[in-house]
């Protein structure tokens, strides 16, 4: 199935990405359907892809033997999923599980990184966008840690 540029531009960090770079992303992508409860990836697995959710909901969870799976965050249409493919040890640090049937663009990280090696400008722009997403997730996590709805405001 052909992947349209609009499918990637719906991600707000990618909406202003130059067309040649969008095309480079498309060359590494395929659309995959995950059924409810399917794992997109599991803790400790090799991080060889990144994901852009087209529809549905994916939960980021961490398993603890005492508490079971703890849900950290949910991701939705237009959200990017996964950055462990960018940095050693290239392994997933969390589980990602579809909570409902979800259509997800799956990007082959190795193939994309190879393109970035030959086009550093593209690599830089993509790195910046993932960096922005990571900052936002870190800030959101810090806010969650504040537990500001509790009694201790």
């Amino acid at each position: 199935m052909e992947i349209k540029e609009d499918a990637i531009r719906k991600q707000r960090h990618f909406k202003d990405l130059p067309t040649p770079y969008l095309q480079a992303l498309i060359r590494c992508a395929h659309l995959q359907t995950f059924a409810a409860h399917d794992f997109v990836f599991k803790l400790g697995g090799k991080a060889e892809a990144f994901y852009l959710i087209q529809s549905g909901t994916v939960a980021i969870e961490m398993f603890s033997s005492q508490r079971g799976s703890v849900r950290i965050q949910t991701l939705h249409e237009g959200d990017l999923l996964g950055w462990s493919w960018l940095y050693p040890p290239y392994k997933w640090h969390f589980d990602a599980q579809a909570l409902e049937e979800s259509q997800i663009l799956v990007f082959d990280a190795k193939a994309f990184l190879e393109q970035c090696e030959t086009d550093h400008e593209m690599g830089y722009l993509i790195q910046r966008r993932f960096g922005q997403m990571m900052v936002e997730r870190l800030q959101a996590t810090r806010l969650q840690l504040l537990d500001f709805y509790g009694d201790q405001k």
Partner: protein
Amino acid sequence: MSPALLPEVWRISDFRWETPQTFSLSCEKPEVQTRVQTLNPFRPGQFNMLYVFGVGEVPISISGSPENTSAQIHTIRKVGAVTNALAELKPGQSLGIRGPFGSAWPLHKAKGKDLVIVAGGLGLAPVRPVIYAALAMRSEIRSLTLLYGARQHAEILYADELLSWQTGAEIAVHITLDQATQSWQGRVGVVTSLIQAQDLDADRTLALICGPEIMMRYSAHTFLEKGLKPEQIYVSLERNMQCAVGFCGHCQYGPHFICKDGPVFRYDKVQSLLNTREV
């Protein structure tokens, strides 16, 4: 003594637990029941001073409908001596009430606009009256959205009402939790993620925010990132309000008295103060 400083004796007509620590008191004026007086009218966003005889007085936002002419509802979290005493009151018992006080949400500015209401935790209580009022004038508002963040599933306020709104077409309701178990099938994440996910027409949006101050600050930042101007954002602040009429100075916040000039402020009026820790 000024009527504003003299509590009137009201009666509890209904008591209900909303969450394990939060409850709602419906209060009615005995004279209203005998048609001698009318209920003190309030505007959404205003608060009353609730007085437990012999214990003390606390400012509590009015959380019911402004069109309810028989009772005023106050939603309260048990956090101290007075609120613990309020939690012990039973229907038929009396309490003192002064009010209503303070500024209101600028609902008139929502006409023809997209109204986005953001509430966090107990902050849903002070915005519920404005939701009722917005629903009453729904045809004049282009779109109406409630973004609500809560700590846990058990701490979602007015859960039944939120569900009924979610299943209707008048208001879009999005809820996110900071902490969730596997049984929760909704969103997990901070309330700002709900704002981020909205496709806003920045020029036509009016944002009302109520919740813990940090949450309001980050929510306002997110609206600014989405292109809103500070003049399109309103927040409801909370301080140590005691006299409620701007005499005592306990709730002074820079050049403002929260009780008299607030609690609802246009964001540009308090934006710099929210980042000043000495205030």
